[in-house]
């Protein structure tokens, strides 16, 4: 079992319904169990419609079960799939030692499109995120995924970027093994492993 810097280690995956963060959190949880940890993954709650705020909570321990929701201010790592959702989750769960990955691709709610609400300036959002954590990585996962030919690879790239930081006590091999199970089509499997490695390279070199 890899060493755990803190028990429990608290992870949040923040995004918008439809982005696939529930799936991402589930894969992290599965990898943790494979590596011998006790994992608790709080799934999506609320009306599971596309477009709503979704935060998945992952609690990691050597030996015991924690609640499925991270207590206030106790996040060790936040994986942000959307900038304003990352900031929203930080408001509730971050502390000065929290580390953050953020995908800068904005998803606008219809209320902003209609003009009834506003989306904050993206540069200000990113600056606020960077200022209020101990370490941050801006990972342009959506753009990189489009380059690979499908926006769906964004999640895999973010998964890789998370591995690259070395914060989670899981190795690349466990994730690759889970992908092998999930992607029956060998082409799809290979493409995802490629996206995973791309993600790892985005954060690893800056470590």
């Amino acid at each position, binding site marked *: 079992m890899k060493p755990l810097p803190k028990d429990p280690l608290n992870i949040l995956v923040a995004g918008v319904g439809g982005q696939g963060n529930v799936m991402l959190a589930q894969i992290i949880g599965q990898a943790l169990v494979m590596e011998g940890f006790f994992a608790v993954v709080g799934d999506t709650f609320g009306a599971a419609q596309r477009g709503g705020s979704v935060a998945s909570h992952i609690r990691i321990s050597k030996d015991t079960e924690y609640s499925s929701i991270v207590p206030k201010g106790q996040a060790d790592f936040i994986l942000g799939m959307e900038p304003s959702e990352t900031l929203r989750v930080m408001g509730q769960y971050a502390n000065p030692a929290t580390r953050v990955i953020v995908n800068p691709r904005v998803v606008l*709610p219809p209320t902003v499109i209609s003009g009834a609400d506003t*989306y904050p300036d993206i540069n200000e959002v990113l600056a606020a995120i960077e200022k209020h954590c101990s370490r941050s990585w801006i990972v342009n996962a959506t753009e990189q995924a489009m380059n690979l030919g499908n926006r769906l690879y964004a999640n895999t790239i973010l998964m890789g970027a998370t591995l690259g930081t070395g914060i989670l006590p899981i190795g690349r091999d466990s994730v690759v093994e889970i992908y092998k199970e999930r992607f029956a089509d060998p082409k799809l499997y290979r493409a995802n492993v490629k996206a995973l490695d791309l993600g790892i390279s985005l954060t690893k070199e800056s470590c």
Partner: protein
Amino acid sequence: MTDIDVHAPGRVELLLGNEAIARGALEAGVGFISGYPGTPSSEIIPTIAAIAKRNNIYAEWAANEKVAMEAAAGASFSGIRSMAVMKQNGINVAVDFIGNLQMTGIKAGMVLLVADDPGPLSSSNEEDTRIVAKWMDFPLLEPCCAQEAKDMTKWAFEVSEQCGLICMVRTVSRIGHTRANVKLGELPEVEKKAYYQDTWNMYHPTKGIHCTVGGFDAGLHPGKIKKFATVKEILAKAPQEFNWYTGPDEPELLIITSGVAYIYAKEALKILKLEDKVGILKLGTTWPLPEEIVAKHLRNTKKILFVEELEPFLERNVMELAASLPSGTRHINFYGMRSGHMRGYGDVNVDLVIDAVLKIVGGSYEPRDVTYGLEIEELAEAAPARPWEMCPGCPYRPFFWTVKTALQIDGRDGFSLVDVGCYTLGAFNAGYWQGRTTHAMGSSFGVACGLGKLEQFGFSQPVMAMVGDSTFFHASIPALVSGTWNNANFIAVVMDNSATAMTGHQPHPGLSTTVMGDTASAISTEAVCRSMGCRVEVCDPFDMEATKNTILDLLSDDSGVKVLIVRRLCELVRARVEKKPPFKMHVDPEKCIGEDCGCARLCTRMFHCPGLMWDEKAGRAVIDEVMCAGCGVCADICPKGAIIKETLQE
């Protein structure tokens, strides 16, 4: 996850709480499982259905929870272990049968699995169903985590069989929808043989094994009480890990808790480093109360805090017990919902328990640097709200748009009532605030039965009552019968998207496949309504012009109940089957003249599909290709015809 029926005792898997419950039922040798979809219980039946055939199990979706309970009882009477699965609202539907079933009792172990939704996180109301166990006299088990959910579900079958009554397992959203480590147990080899013995005759004077006192119903109630008296002894043999105490011998404060609230209490004490001062009495068998262990700990403390969700269930039951103890409990101060230390609504969390504990024992706790906290909280307020929205391509959006248009044209202050399903969103901004009420399943038809008979009091507003296709079969038909027979004047709308969409697209009696994948003869909604003599119209919500004209025609017809079936497959189901969208959409930048048009941005401001964007710089509407489902409806919204739909090549 490998298959839920994998025979690998001791293996640890990351299981969804609901999968753990399914596994527990398998480990108990369940033979028959029935239920009705409802978050957070919906995954249990499909998990078992997927492996049912090869394990000689029968799994089904019933039309509603009462029927599910009745069907499961039929299996139990014939010697097959059975389980009925529902959410908190479902038990309300089933409770009439439960009240009678408790009188006769059951034969093979029968488990009532109820998933409550404190929050509520995805329900129209909040309810604590534990009260039904006390009301109706049956044993109640409350798991605190996925592992216990599996272990308790398995044990519940034994408890039920031993006492001859149903046994209830009550979970909540935070268990059913959380993934956690679960250690698998043995899968038994059971011979499942159904046979209805002739001694199982409720009312026979000599053979009726449940009517030994005086025959007929005179014997039933005493019989139930006698059986329930055995429950305490059976539960006293609960595996040690279900009821236990942790903490000092004479704690400064004792927390009495059950279910998922225990996990919050445990974590709160760890954060506050109070584990050597504050004790926790964690109860897994909560009705009837395990009096011995509770009484023992009442003697060792002067302060007790009850940590539980929704109703002060433990709080009341423990205080009831305390009042009857000869030693007296006048030395104890009780804290909980009664004292205002805990709230009687919403789900509990670690921070709420921390607050309650500190209010009693003193001290303070800051989860993070105070200045940092204030700063980040203020910054986070800039994040825009993400209100509920129907999916791009959802048939309900154009329908509510058309309803709004038609009712305005009609001009008699007509209005709509919605029901429980995705179309509940019709009562919000997503559906242009069209729905005025939402109550129980099928209640919109029922309420309309009243509104439709108010003419003699000067009521002249048209009423459209809307239910979904699954809701129609669940509990709307009696209201339709009543309204039709009493000649109530309203339009009964069936929003048919050919799925129980909101809970995850489960099949229902209007469809031709069962949860086990067998072919079924679909029941025609039209035929049901026509058999009552109702006028029935069917429309496609994507054809907004025709739908509007149909609604206007129905609005002018005041001859009792008129049925409008609004039929179009749920977009999420369609996309799964057809893969490709029907149209490729784009906005013609020449034709869209933005704010100069005079349409007041009808498409992006009023219609607000998530697939439509507004390009601030260009002052034009654009299609968001990532979100757009290609349904083509918005092409009919634009007054300038600037939104273009191209048919995709086959």
